[in-house]
């Protein structure tokens, strides 16, 4: 079948609609004007200087990076183990267990934000680093479960059985046979978990208290005024995301980004 010219026109408009905002933000971040003039009258790095020259932005960047680093490591370790348990375990309620692990990704973030806010307030952890890390771990873990789960199900189970036959305990088999073979998927899962934590805004807004992450500060600035400094941090975040996509594409090789994203 061929697409007619009408379908092609709508399709190209749709594609442009998806991409134009991204392109414009990147171009504007190098503008020399203090208004949102497009095309920019000249180019400069003043918005990047204004970002890195502002200690509050830099502090937010450090908080975001630390938070993403810690929570994605925990999510990777616990999530990978759980993915193994769900993929290879034979016990009743396995489907329910997996649904429970994936749920934070499917439910509206605002519901999780409200539930965590009420809970953390009750136990006195609202605005604590521990509460923030816990929130980010449960939000990032589904990405690990999905990516690593697919990889484990695609791994030849007979290899695991051979390790057992040769006298390996389950722990030895998981650590010395399974995990080394899953390294590419683990790397993809880690990057996904890191980016999802770094970008998270809604739950963070509710439970972070006085901690300020980059998305939280961006959001609070955006509600008040349009400040071109945000185009600079937005471009940096686009850069990080693209780099992550590229890394995952390289790691997962032929399967490609589509495959690792959509769990195929």
């Amino acid at each position, binding site marked *: *079948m061929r697409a007619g010219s*009408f*379908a092609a026109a709508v*399709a190209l*408009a749709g*594609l442009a*609609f*998806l991409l134009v*905002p*991204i392109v414009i*933000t990147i171009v*504007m971040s190098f503008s020399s004007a203090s*208004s949102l003039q*497009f095309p920019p009258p000249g180019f400069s790095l003043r918005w990047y200087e204004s970002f890195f020259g502002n200690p509050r932005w830099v502090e937010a960047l450090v908080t975001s990076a630390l938070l993403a680093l810690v929570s994605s490591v925990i999510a990777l370790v*616990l*999530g990978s*183990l759980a993915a*193994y*348990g*769900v993929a290879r*375990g*034979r*016990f009743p309620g396995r489907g329910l267990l997996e649904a429970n*692990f994936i749920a*934070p990704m499917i439910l*509206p973030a*605002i*519901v*999780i934000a*409200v*539930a*965590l806010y*009420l*809970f*953390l307030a*009750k136990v006195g952890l609202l605005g604590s680093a521990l509460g923030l890390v*816990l929130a980010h771990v*449960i939000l990032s*873990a589904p990405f690990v479960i999905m990516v690593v789960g697919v990889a484990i199900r695609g791994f030849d189970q007979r290899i695991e059985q051979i390790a*057992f*036959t040769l006298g390996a*305990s*389950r722990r030895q088999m*998981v650590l010395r046979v399974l995990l080394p073979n899953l390294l590419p998927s683990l790397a993809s899962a880690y990057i996904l978990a890191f*980016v999802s934590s770094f*970008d998270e*805004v809604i739950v963070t*807004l*509710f439970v972070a208290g006085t901690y300020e992450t980059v998305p939280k500060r961006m*959001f609070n600035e*955006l*509600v008040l005024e*349009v400040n071109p400094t*945000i185009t600079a941090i*937005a471009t940096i*975040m*686009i850069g990080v995301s*693209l780099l992550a996509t590229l890394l995952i594409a390289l790691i997962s090789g032929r399967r490609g980004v*589509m495959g690792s994203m*959509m769990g195929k």
Partner: protein
Amino acid sequence: MSAVTQGMLPGHAARAAPRAGWGAGAYALPLLGLMIIAFDLPILLMLAQSVLSPQPTLEHWAELGQSPVYLRVLGNTFQMALITALVCGALGYPLAFWIRCLKPRAQLVALSLVLLPFWISVLVRTYAWIVVLGNAGLVNRSLLWLGLTEAPLPFLYNTLGVTIGTTNVLLPFLVLPLVASMMKMDERLFQAAATLGASRMAIFWRVFFPLTLPAFAAGTLLVFILTLGFYVTPAILGGGRVPMIANMLDVLINVMPRWEVAAAISTLLLGATILLFGLYRMVGGRRS
């Protein structure tokens, strides 16, 4: 399996070789523990708070039904979700169809471009629309410069602005699964229709389109579900004039504060999402 193992390795007879079963399942326990504490328990507490605070009562739920403010915001949210689903469908179907008809290499490029915004923070994508459509934005400046309008057109801080933002974020969620389902279709089906004398229009509307309907309906429903919980887009592109459930929850928690009512509304949103998601699984089939 374990019997064979023990037979071959008598020295290990005391330690049975690990089998698939509870043993492997134990690896899920650490995350399960964390999930129970930091996710399941909070959700249950939220449900409880909406009916048990301070004593068993339905007054917080009754307040929802009686207050016109809550009902208006709920109606507004469902309306936004419907508009977004329709716009995404109208834009996404031709896009998916066009991608399906491309040559494999071009297809890969087009799919990557659709996937690209997936990777970029919703915040950044929402912000970009202020740059493009704001009063001092690209479009309004061009219109003023061309003399097509006297004053900047109000694209943002109304329903239109929020629709543009939500559609932009959710379009890939409709397009990607739709392309996947379209690519699974057997090309010979259309060749057969052509052999039987069907025109191109007839092949599309009477063979191709009906076959894509389940995936199309499922994708539109997914967009509807995801719009219900939107917070960032209405807050930034609606300028407070297009309040949705999530923004009302923010007010009830952080400004008012009316935690019990917030718990009730949040529970309502949770229930609606789960219900619609079940419907989505039914419509789209298990594999989509």
